[in-house]
């Protein structure tokens, strides 16, 4: 479904990604972790072309992200993305946040789009808030709406870029619950996160990145059982302490 | 429509003595610069006094300065110019009135009106900048000065204003550039500054594109030059070890 081949990226002289190669199969859940500044957020943003890369290629559902001929907006409309800071559109109500791209990008009818949005809002347990504005919701609630907004586009895969790291601790679980449910339903997911509990519960594979490179790419059980690299071991021991 | 391009027009004789059209532009520029500088002196002095007044404790002085600012900011510059040129001279005592209207060269009386008008108009804006600059300083500065036994005038003169002016160099620069551009209203009461000379050249020669292009270039170059100069000044007067509060 998503295949990342020898991707490298520079900011000027500074190399942020070094020869990254990995694959996410259909229905697979892959967790990407690593210390801050390791390039994991940059890598996931390359998958839907939000960040350009200079060498290598990424193929999503048979389409090359790096090719200048690719219709990026069209590709992005088929891949959902959830951001660290939610990025709901503050000037639009929750209903309109859910419906906007369905109408403008997919060309759905307004009532159809709203109906679909409300159904998904119900799924993330927030149907009571449909008429509110993003600023009136808690962080956890906003992030659940953001997930619903991405799902409303009927994505073939979902990208999560640190979806819980801007949340207060007591709100993390409500978001993770939605993600776990999604994984159980067979959604293809690539998640940048430090939530190792989530990784243990639903991930098929775990990728560990450091200094722009993929250091480890292993099955979940292998990763947690016996991580090979020293860096991954140090990282894990630090993270699992809390 | 037919048009005769001639970029050499500025070196043609105007038919008056040995003058060429370029001389008109130079004379006009002279008036423009004189108006701007004279107006700026008034604006800076009065504006500073008003700005200080706005930050003083008490009620009456800040209020007076605030009313001044509102009046001069909310009436169009041209209306203010008409008031100074058409109305105020009539209100002067008899002797002064005859002197202003008859003894003075018309260009001089127009010059005086425009300078007063530009000075008082711009003072309102300078006032707001000075106030912002003073209020941007930490309250501790005033307290420290009081604690040293300084009196209020000394606190402003020695402590607050020297710091405030450094902060507000960029906005003051743009106010000066505004007075420079605004001085073109003098053309509307017959003073032959740069814009009026440009118009006259355009009408005399029918080479309006060339005339207006030259005027535009003069304004543009002086503006850019002054801006760069003031950036240099700002760097020169920067206090070592202090990060400028007013942007980079």
């Amino acid at each position: 479904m998503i295949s990342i081949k020898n991707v490298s990226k520079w900011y000027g002289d500074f190399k942020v990604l070094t020869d990254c190669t990995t694959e996410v199969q259909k229905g697979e859940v892959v967790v990407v972790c690593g210390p801050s500044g390791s390039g994991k957020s940059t890598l996931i943003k390359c998958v839907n072309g939000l960040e350009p890369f200079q060498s290598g290629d990424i193929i999503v559902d048979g389409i090359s992200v790096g090719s200048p001929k690719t219709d990026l907006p069209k590709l992005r409309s088929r891949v959902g993305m959830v951001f660290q800071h939610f990025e709901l559109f503050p000037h639009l109500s929750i209903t309109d946040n859910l419906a906007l791209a369905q109408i403008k990008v997919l060309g759905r009818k307004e009532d159809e789009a709203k109906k679909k949005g409300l159904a998904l809002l119900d799924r993330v347990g927030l149907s009571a808030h449909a008429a509110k504005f993003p600023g009136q919701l808690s962080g956890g609630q906003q992030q659940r709406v953001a997930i619903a907004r991405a799902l409303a586009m009927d994505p073939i895969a979902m990208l999560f870029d640190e979806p819980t790291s801007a949340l207060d601790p007591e709100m993390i679980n409500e978001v993770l619950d939605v993600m776990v449910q999604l994984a159980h339903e067979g959604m293809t997911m690539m998640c940048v996160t430090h939530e190792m509990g989530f990784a243990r519960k639903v991930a098929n594979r775990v990728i560990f990145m450091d200094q722009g490179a993929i250091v480890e790419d292993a099955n979940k059980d292998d990763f947690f059982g016996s991580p090979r690299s020293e860096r991954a071991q140090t990282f894990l021991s630090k993270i699992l302490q809390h | 429509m037919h048009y005769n391009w001639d970029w050499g027009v500025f070196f043609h004789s105007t038919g008056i003595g040995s003058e060429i059209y370029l001389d008109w532009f130079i004379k006009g520029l002279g008036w423009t610069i004189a108006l701007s500088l004279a107006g700026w002196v008034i604006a800076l002095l009065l504006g500073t006094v008003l700005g200080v007044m706005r930050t003083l404790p008490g009620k009456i002085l800040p209020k007076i300065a605030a009313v001044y600012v509102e009046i001069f900011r909310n009436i169009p510059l041209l209306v203010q110019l008409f008031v100074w040129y058409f109305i105020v001279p009539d209100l002067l005592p008899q002797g002064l009135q005859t002197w202003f209207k008859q003894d003075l060269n018309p260009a001089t009386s127009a010059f005086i009106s425009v300078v007063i008008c530009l000075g008082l108009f711009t003072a309102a804006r300078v006032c707001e900048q000075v106030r912002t600059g003073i209020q941007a300083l930490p309250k501790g500065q005033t307290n420290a000065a009081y604690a040293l036994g300084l009196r209020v005038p000394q606190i402003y003169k020695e402590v607050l204003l020297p710091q405030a002016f450094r902060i507000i160099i960029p906005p003051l620069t743009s106010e000066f550039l505004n007075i420079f551009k605004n001085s073109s209203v003098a053309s509307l009461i017959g003073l032959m500054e740069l814009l009026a000379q440009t118009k006259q050249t355009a009408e005399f020669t029918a080479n309006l594109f060339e005339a207006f292009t030259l005027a535009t270039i003069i304004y543009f170059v002086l503006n850019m030059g002054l801006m760069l100069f003031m950036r240099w000044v700002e760097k020169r007067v920067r206090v070592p070890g202090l990060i400028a509060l007013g942007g980079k």
Partner: protein
Amino acid sequence: MDFSSLITAMPGLLSGMMLTLKLLVLAIIGGVALGTLLALARLSNNKLLSTLAGFYVNYFRSIPLLLVITWFYFVVPFIIGWLTGTNEPIGAFYSCLVAFMMFEAAYYCEIVRAGIQSISKGQVNAAYALGMSYSQTMRLVILPQAFRKMTPLLLQQSIILFQDTSLVYAVGLMDFLNSARSGGDIVGELHQFLLFAGLVYFIISFGASTLVKRLQKRLTV
């Protein structure tokens, strides 16, 4: 002072005010529209486009409005003549309107640019991630938020524009100030008429800026 002649002159003053307001409204619409395009150009990744827009802004910000008004009054009929091949005079109103639009666009551009830059990059990413094009992202997500933030500044600039419309006196257009001046000249009461005009400008500008300040407070809370 005797104000009876002011009452007689009221119809003339009113039609002057109508012209001022018509010029103002059209210049705001045109200026904001052009200013927004300029702001998008200045922020674009295309080097040529952003340099050109930057030059446009610096250029108009460094020359006097009165110069632009006079310039356009002389020159716009020529250019229209060349473009259309006719000698049709377009009249002072339209040459002034074009002058105000193009001049104010430089000032509106800087306000809009700051407004756009105040919206986080994450919003752009989120819109792109949903498959929106550049134009959809700007129209549906970024500009609606930016305009909300910068409304007070746009209004303040428009109040300055309202005062500046009086400069059309230079080309003899009968706006409010010029109607007052000529009305006063005719009856020999220039003083009263000019003071009255000043008072009207003051009330409108002061009232409007008081409202804008109140709006600004409400938006920042």
